[in-house]
């Protein structure tokens, strides 16, 4: 193994970080939903791919620029998330057995994956625009334009969620519910309301992530599950319940994958990513960024 030149290393890091931000934004959605409902929403990846297909449909049929379609995707995601919670999870959220919610999420995943296959076929799809191939050159390092935009979307989305949680009263209620649902309920916070809000924001983030994914990667209806798994890894790295940490966890995962791919081999990326995940769960289950006094 020879050490690469600093340029290659920097290039590798940038590609990894930009790609990892996609996992990060998926993880932020998972983190919110997990926070209030204690549910691993396995369908998040499928939702992101669904959003990517919608972005493609808007672009191909109506000529709407993929990045412009954010204005449509985010509100649609908010409404869809609210409806999904009210229609599917409201009843299950009241049950003590959390397998039920998990299985509904699995059912949603099957359903969405196969609806996409029926509507758009099982082949790999991509969105190709006039700027897909263009890049930004800085200090001898090249970053793809669409990946950079995806990174910005992830960053902006996470920042908005963090601001919402910190600065608004509703956000405070969501945070309180994530920490202790019973206590929050006793303080007059409606569990269904915070759950629905978490779901709405989570799916809205999936809509935003769909824009980023559609413009950057080729995708197919079944790509979502791997995405969900990677988002889970990012979530654990960042610390479950830590929203900004989830984005950072995604970026770290992207970096790990880029380095493993370059230095070892593409075949081992998943094993090493999950190995890191297991190690974090075992030795630092509260995540990489937690401070000692904070409850995980």
């Amino acid at each position, binding site marked *: 193994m020879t050490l690469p030149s600093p340029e290659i290393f920097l290039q590798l890091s940038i590609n990894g970080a930009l790609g990892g931000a996609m996992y990060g934004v998926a993880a932020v959605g998972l983190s919110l939903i*997990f926070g209030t409902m*204690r549910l*691993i929403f396995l369908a998040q990846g499928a939702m992101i791919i669904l959003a990517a297909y919608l972005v493609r449909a808007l672009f191909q049929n109506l000529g709407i620029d993929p990045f412009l379609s954010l204005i449509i995707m985010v509100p649609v995601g908010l409404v869809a998330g609210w409806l999904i919670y009210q229609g*599917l999870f409201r*009843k*299950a959220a009241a*049950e003590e*057995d959390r*397998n*039920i919610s*998990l*299985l*509904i999420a*699995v*059912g*949603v*995943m*099957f*359903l*969405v*994956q*196969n*609806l996409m*296959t*029926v509507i758009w076929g099982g082949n790999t799809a991509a969105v190709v625009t006039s700027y897909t191939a263009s890049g930004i050159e800085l200090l001898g390092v090249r970053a793809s334009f669409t990946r950079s935009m995806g990174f910005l979307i992830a960053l902006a989305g996470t920042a908005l969620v963090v601001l919402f949680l910190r600065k608004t009263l509703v956000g405070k209620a969501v945070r309180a519910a994530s920490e202790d649902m019973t206590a929050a309920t006793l303080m007059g916070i409606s569990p269904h309301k915070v759950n629905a809000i978490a779901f709405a924001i989570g799916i809205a983030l999936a809509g935003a992530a769909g824009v980023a994914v559609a413009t950057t990667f080729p995708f197919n209806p079944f790509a979502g*599950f791997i995405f969900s*798994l990677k988002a*889970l*890894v990012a979530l*654990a790295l960042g610390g*479950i319940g830590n929203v900004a940490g989830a984005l950072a966890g995604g970026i770290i995962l992207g970096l790990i994958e880029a380095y493993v791919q370059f230095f070892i081999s593409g*075949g*081992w990326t*998943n*094993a090493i990513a*999950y*190995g890191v*995940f*297991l190690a974090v*769960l*075992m030795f630092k*289950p509260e995540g990489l960024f937690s401070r000692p006094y904070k409850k995980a």
Partner: protein
Amino acid sequence: MTAMANISWKWAAALLTVILALVPFWPGALDSYLFSFLFFVFIYAVMAQGWNLVAGFGGQISLGSHAFFGLGAYTTAILWSGNYLWGSLYETFPRIYYFDPVTMVLSGLVAALAAALIGLPLLSKLRGDYFALGTLGFGEILKVIFVNGGDFTGGAFGLVTPSSTFETLMPHYYVGLGLTVGTAVAIGWLMRSRYGLALIAVRDDEMAASANGINTLKVKVAAFAGSAFIAGIAGSLYSFYIFHVGPDSVFNLDWMLLPLMMTVVGGTGTVLGPILGAFIMYAVFDIARIFVPDYHPIISGLTIILAMLFLPKGLVRKILPMSLARN
């Protein structure tokens, strides 16, 4: 009344077992669709029962059953294709590995050993969702290891065992039926024993169980390893059916998700639930696959959602008297 009901249900189950055991004697049954359908129901029922042991009775949600299923299937395929077990006897008896009980038990033991090794650190450190995520990660790692295992595991293609040994589905059917009944009886008996009580105590209140002198870690790891043993044997049985053990087929997440779903639909923490769930859910999936092939996964997805919305406690608790369903 419940004692009477208990006895009559046992008789009904025994009668059903006898009827199922006689199915192969029906003329033409061996070539019928129903026969292979029942074989798959048995495999899924065994997998569901295994998951039920650790998750239903033990309360530890594992998302790694597919890892142990795959490990069992691979152990059988490796032992057979590499002839690591019987040496020169293999030449004299070319069918020695086919449904060889030693190979099958070893496959279960390898899976159980792996579960104990991974379960000890995971269960001593992690609780609830973290344990679930950890087992999911373990399954994915194992898959990559087998893909990269070179000639020993056959890489991304996997291993092929001599399919010329196949004659009929008869042995598959009987072993499947035997395992289904055997695991159900064994777990039913186990849950009445001291160990079963300890396991349920740990599930219901770990702190209280520990205060009463139960070594909670030991109890949980034993349940996890036992569940892996069952999954490993199911994997071994499947490898005698498929004759090609590849990473994408035996480490497929369906081997974890479907049994989990069947158990929950049938009734978690009941002995009959996983079997009933396997039968009903597999029938729904298969009927959908035959009649609406393009849409069948949509129907499967819908069925799960509807079952969870309207039958969250499982079918068994709906149709059987409460005292019975609990066991």
